[in-house]
C-alpha cells in the first residue's frame, strides 16, 4: 500500500493510496512523518499528520502501515515521559538533542532491559482472557500479567526476560508476551461497569470536604488564565490517593512541564512514601508541539490509564487542558473543510468528549478484580467565559464541576474554587462514606460550614450598603468566622506543608472554626461585646 502525496493543507495531507482503512497509520514524505487516515475517498485518502508538515512536497512517497495508532503496553511505562504518540522523550533527547526533530521513530519502551517474571499459574491451567498469569516486579510495583486470550497454558517461563521474549506459551502454540499494542481510540474491554462508591481523596480541603470526587468519577475545572488550573492539577497529581497517575500535559507550557518533572522526581508519594515518579506516567505535548499529536495525546494517555485499571489498580488521569485538545480537533476539522458548529468547533465535539469521559469508571475487570479510572480535567475557556462550547460540552457529562474564580485568584485565594457555583454529583455517597470512615460529624460540620458561607454572602451585600458597623453583633461574628473559613480552611498554599491535608485533619480544622463560632455566639448572648471576643 504505497503511493504519493497529492496535496498538503496545514496538518492534513492527501495521498493517492487505495485500500486504506479509517484511522490506519500512514507514513508520508521522504521524512517519513506519521499520520492517521481521517477521510477516505475512492483512490485517495486524507491523512492527519502528527508532525510539522513544513518541508513536505507533493509527489513524495507515502505508505500505509496497515495498523491503527497504538500504544505499547508493558512493564516499564511507570516513570516514563512520552509525547502524544508515546515516543519516549528522554530517549529522544539522548538521540536527537534538546530540540524535538520531526520524523523520528523511537520505540516507547526499553527493549534491552531485563525483567523478572514470577508465574502465578501452572502449565496445564485453563484460563480465560484477563486471568492472572503472574507478576513482573517493576520497582515496588507488582505488575500483573494477564492472559491475552482464553485457552490452556502449555508453559510459563519464570525468571528473566526482555520485552521481545515470550513469557510462556498457550496450547494452541502461540507465545504469550508481556507486551501488547493497543489501538488508542478503542476503549479497553472489561466485564461490567460498577457505580462509583469510594471517594478519591485529593488532599485539597475544598475538594474533599465540599465537592468530593469519586474513584471512577469525572471532574472538570474550568478557569480563566491565572486562576491556578495547572497548580491545582499538579497538586492533585502529587497527593491523590490512587495507585497510578497518568498526567497529560495537553497543549500547555514547556517550562511548567520541566517544573513538574523536577518536582516529581524529588517528591514522595504521601501515601506510600515512594518517589512520586514511580507511580506516574507523563504524556506531554506542549503548545508548540504539533497540533495533530496533541489531539491524539489524550487517547494515548487514557489507553495507558485503562491498562493499569485492568490490573485492578485505582488510576487517575489528569489532563491539562482539555480545551487545547478541543482546539486541536477544531484545527484539524477546519483543514478538512468540515461544516463548523458553534465557534468553529466541529459538531462532533460534544459526542467525542462524552465518549472520552465514558472511558472513566469503576469496572470489574476481565480477570474479576475491581479497578477504577478517574479523570480530572482542566478547561481553559476563552476570556474566562463559561458559556463557550467546550466548557458546556464538559458540563453535560462531568460529575464534578469546580468553578475557578478569577476574582478569588486576584485576591490570591488559592485554590480559587468558587464555593457557590461548584458542585459534585457524587456528594451523597461520598459524604456518607466520610461519615462512616472519618467521623460521623463530617456531614453535620459540612452543613454548618456551607451555611456560614452562604449567610456571609447574603450579609456581604447588606454590609456593602450599611457598612460592617451597621450589622448586628451576631452577624458581625459570622462575617469574622466566614473570613476564617476562607483564609484558614478553604485556601491552601500549594508551596507549603499545608499543600496536602488528610481527611481527618481537614475535618479537625473546620470543626475547630465552627466550634469557635458556637462558643463566641454563646458569649455574645451573655453580653460580651464583639470586639472583646477572643480571636481563636
Amino acid at each position, binding site marked *: 500500500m504505497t503511493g504519493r502525496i497529492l496535496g498538503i493543507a496545514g496538518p492534513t495531507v492527501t495521498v493517492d493510496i487505495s485500500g486504506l482503512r479509517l484511522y490506519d497509520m500512514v507514513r508520508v514524505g521522504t521524512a517519513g512523518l506519521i499520520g492517521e487516515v481521517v477521510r477516505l475517498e475512492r483512490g485517495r485518502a486524507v491523512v492527519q499528520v502528527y508532525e510539522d508538515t513544513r518541508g513536505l512536497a507533493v509527489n513524495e512517497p507515502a505508505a500505509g502501515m496497515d495498523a491503527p495508532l497504538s500504544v505499547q503496553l508493558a512493564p516499564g511505562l511507570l516513570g516514563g515521559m512520552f509525547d502524544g504518540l508515546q515516543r519516549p522523550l528522554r530517549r529522544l533527547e539522548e538521540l536527537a538533542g534538546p530540540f524535538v526533530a520531526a520524523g523520528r521513530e523511537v520505540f516507547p519502551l526499553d527493549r534491552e532491559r531485563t525483567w523478572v517474571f514470577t508465574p502465578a499459574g501452572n502449565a496445564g491451567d485453563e484460563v480465560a482472557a484477563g486471568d492472572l498469569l503472574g507478576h513482573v516486579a517493576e520497582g515496588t510495583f507488582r505488575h500483573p500479567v494477564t492472559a491475552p486470550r482464553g485457552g490452556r497454558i502449555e508453559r510459563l517461563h519464570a525468571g528473566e526476560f526482555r520485552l521481545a521474549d515470550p513469557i510462556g506459551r498457550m496450547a494452541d502454540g502461540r507465545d504469550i508476551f508481556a507486551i501488547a499494542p493497543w489501538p488508542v481510540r478503542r476503549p479497553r474491554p472489561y466485564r461490567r461497569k460498577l457505580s462509583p462508591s469510594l471517594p478519591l481523596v485529593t488532599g485539597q480541603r475544598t475538594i474533599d470536604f465540599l465537592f468530593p470526587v469519586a474513584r471512577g468519577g469525572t471532574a472538570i475545572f474550568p478557569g480563566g488564565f491565572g486562576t491556578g488550573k495547572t497548580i491545582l492539577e499538579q497538586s492533585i497529581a502529587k497527593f491523590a490517593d490512587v495507585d497510578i497517575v497518568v498526567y497529560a500535559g495537553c497543549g500547555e507550557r*514547556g517550562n511548567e512541564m520541566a517544573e513538574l518533572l523536577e518536582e516529581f522526581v524529588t517528591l514522595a508519594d504521601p501515601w506510600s512514601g515512594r518517589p512520586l515518579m514511580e507511580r506516574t506516567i507523563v504524556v506531554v505535548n506542549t503548545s508548540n508541539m504539533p497540533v495533530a499529536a496533541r489531539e491524539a495525546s489524550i487517547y494515548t494517555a487514557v489507553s495507558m490509564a485503562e491498562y493499569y485499571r485492568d490490573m485492578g489498580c485505582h488510576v487517575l488521569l489528569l489532563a491539562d487542558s482539555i480545551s487545547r485538545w478541543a482546539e486541536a480537533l477544531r484545527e484539524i476539522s477546519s483543514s478538512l473543510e468540515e461544516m463548523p458548529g458553534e465557534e468553529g468547533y466541529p459538531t462532533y465535539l460534544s459526542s467525542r468528549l462524552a465518549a472520552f469521559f465514558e472511558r472513566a469508571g469503576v469496572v470489574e475487570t476481565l480477570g474479576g478484580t475491581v479497578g477504577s479510572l478517574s479523570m480530572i480535567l482542566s478547561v481553559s475557556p476563552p476570556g474566562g467565559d463559561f458559556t463557550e462550547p467546550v466548557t458546556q460540552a464538559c458540563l453535560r457529562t462531568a460529575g464534578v464541576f469546580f468553578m475557578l474564580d478569577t476574582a478569588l485568584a486576584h485576591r490570591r485565594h488559592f485554590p480559587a474554587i468558587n464555593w457557590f457555583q461548584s458542585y459534585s454529583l457524587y456528594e451523597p455517597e461520598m459524604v456518607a462514606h466520610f461519615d462512616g470512615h472519618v467521623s460521623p460529624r463530617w456531614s453535620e460540620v459540612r452543613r454548618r460550614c456551607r451555611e456560614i458561607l452562604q449567610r456571609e454572602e447574603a450579609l456581604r451585600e447588606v454590609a*456593602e450598603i450599611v457598612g460592617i458597623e451597621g450589622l448586628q453583633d451576631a452577624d458581625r461574628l459570622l462575617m469574622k468566622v466566614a473570613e476564617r473559613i476562607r483564609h484558614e480552611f478553604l485556601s491552601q498554599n500549594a508551596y507549603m506543608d499545608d499543600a496536602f491535608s488528610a481527611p481527618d485533619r481537614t475535618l479537625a480544622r473546620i470543626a475547630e472554626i465552627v466550634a469557635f463560632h458556637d462558643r463566641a455566639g454563646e458569649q455574645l448572648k451573655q453580653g460580651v461585646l464583639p470586639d472583646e471576643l477572643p480571636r481563636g
Partner: protein
Amino acid sequence: MRLSEHRYRTISSIRGPLLFVEQVFAARMGEVVRIACPGGETAEGEILKIDGDTALIQVFGETRGLGLDADVAFTDAIRQAPLSADVIGRVFNGSFIPIDGAPMFVPEQWAPITGAPINPTARARPEEFIETGLTAIDALNTLVKGQKLPIFSSAGLPAKEMTAAIVRNARLAGGGAFVVVFVALGLPHHEYAFYMQVLAGMEGDFTAFINRAGEPVMERLLAPRFGLAVAEHLAFARGMDVLVVITDMTNYCDALREVSTAREELPGRRGYPGYMYSDLASLYERAGRIRGMPGSVTMLPVVTMPEDDITHPIPDLTGYITEGQIVLSRELHQKGVFPPVDVLPSLSRLMQRGIGSGRTRQDHRRIADLLYKQYAKGRDLRRLEAIVGREGMMGSDRLMLDFADAFERELIHQGAARRDINASLDGGIALLGRFPAEAP
C-alpha cells in the same frame, strides 16, 4: 527532490497577499518563492497550501504592482534565518535586510526560522532572578531567566517607557547584562524613534528587527521568527542570556487575521483564526533554558489590549501561554503613577522559584504576600467607601484605605529611579510598618 529553482508564469489569481499558481511541479509546504514583475518589482512569498499542481502562496512584502504576468521562482527551500554573532549591533527590517547602512554580514549557518520545539525533558526550570529595577515586578511579580512575561497595556499607557526602563535596567543575578533582541511590529515613527534611542543608549548589546507602521503587514509574521531564531542561536549556540522584546503583539495578531481572512478560513472570536493559540505558542514557547547549557531566552512581549479588555482574544490567548502577565492600569496612570502596574491582575507564575534566600531574600515571599493581602483589602474597601463614605467606616478599614493609597504612591510609583531588590523589599517593609493591619 528538485535540485534547482523552478520558474512559472502561471498565476491564476491574486487575492490580497495570496497568490494561486497553477501547474506547479512538486511544490513543498513552506517553500520560499521569489516573485518578479515585468516592471521590475520583486517580492518574496511562502507556500501555504498545495492541492495537486496548484500552490497557494502567501506574499511577504509589497504586493502593489503585482500582476498575473509575474514570474514566480520556486526555490525548493523553506525559509531560513542567516545566523552569526555578527548580528549583534545591527538593525534589520522584517525581511532580515540590514537598514542601518552597513552591508549584510556573512552568515555562519542557516536555521529554519520556525525553530523546533524544545524537548520538555531537556528544559531547565527557570529560577534565576532577574532584577528589572522596578518594584512592581521585582518584589511582587518577579521575573526569572527563561520566562515569558508579557506587558498588557492599553492605548495611551506608557508601555514603551516601561519596556525601555526594563531594557535599560535589567540585570542578571550575577550582575551580567542581557543581549537584547528587539522586534518592532507595525511601529509608528515616534515609537520607533523612541526605541532606537533607548537601544543606542544601552550598555549591553542588541539586535533589532524593525517593521514600521507603513511597511508590509506580512513581514510582521516573519520578523518575530527571525528575531527568535537569532535569539536561540545567541543563547544556545553561543551561551548568551538573551532578552527578546516584541512590541506590539496586537499588530502581529492583526496581521495573522489578515492572512487568515484572505485564505477564507473560518473566523474564530473577533475574526481571529482558530489556530491563533497554537500560532502564538510557536513564538512564546521559544523562551526557556536548556539543561546543561549556558544561555537563556527570556521574552517580554508587549500586548496592547483593544478597548482595555483583558478578555479580548489577543491578551486572553497570550495569558494562557505566557507565565504570567504585567497589567497596566489607566487609573494608576491618571494618578501619575509610573510604572502604572496594577498588581492585582498581574502575576508571575515562576516567581516562587526565583525568590527566597540564595535568590533574592529569605523574607521576600512573606513581604509580597502581606503587601498583596493588604492592598487587595484596601482596594475592596474603596468600593465601600464610595457608598458609605469614609466617615462611615471603621478605623481599621480607614487604615487599609490609606495603605492602598500609599502603596500606589510610594511603592509602585518610582518614576525614573532604579531600585534594587533590597530597596524594593525594604520599601515594602517600611510601608507595612507604617500601616500595621490587625493581626490576621
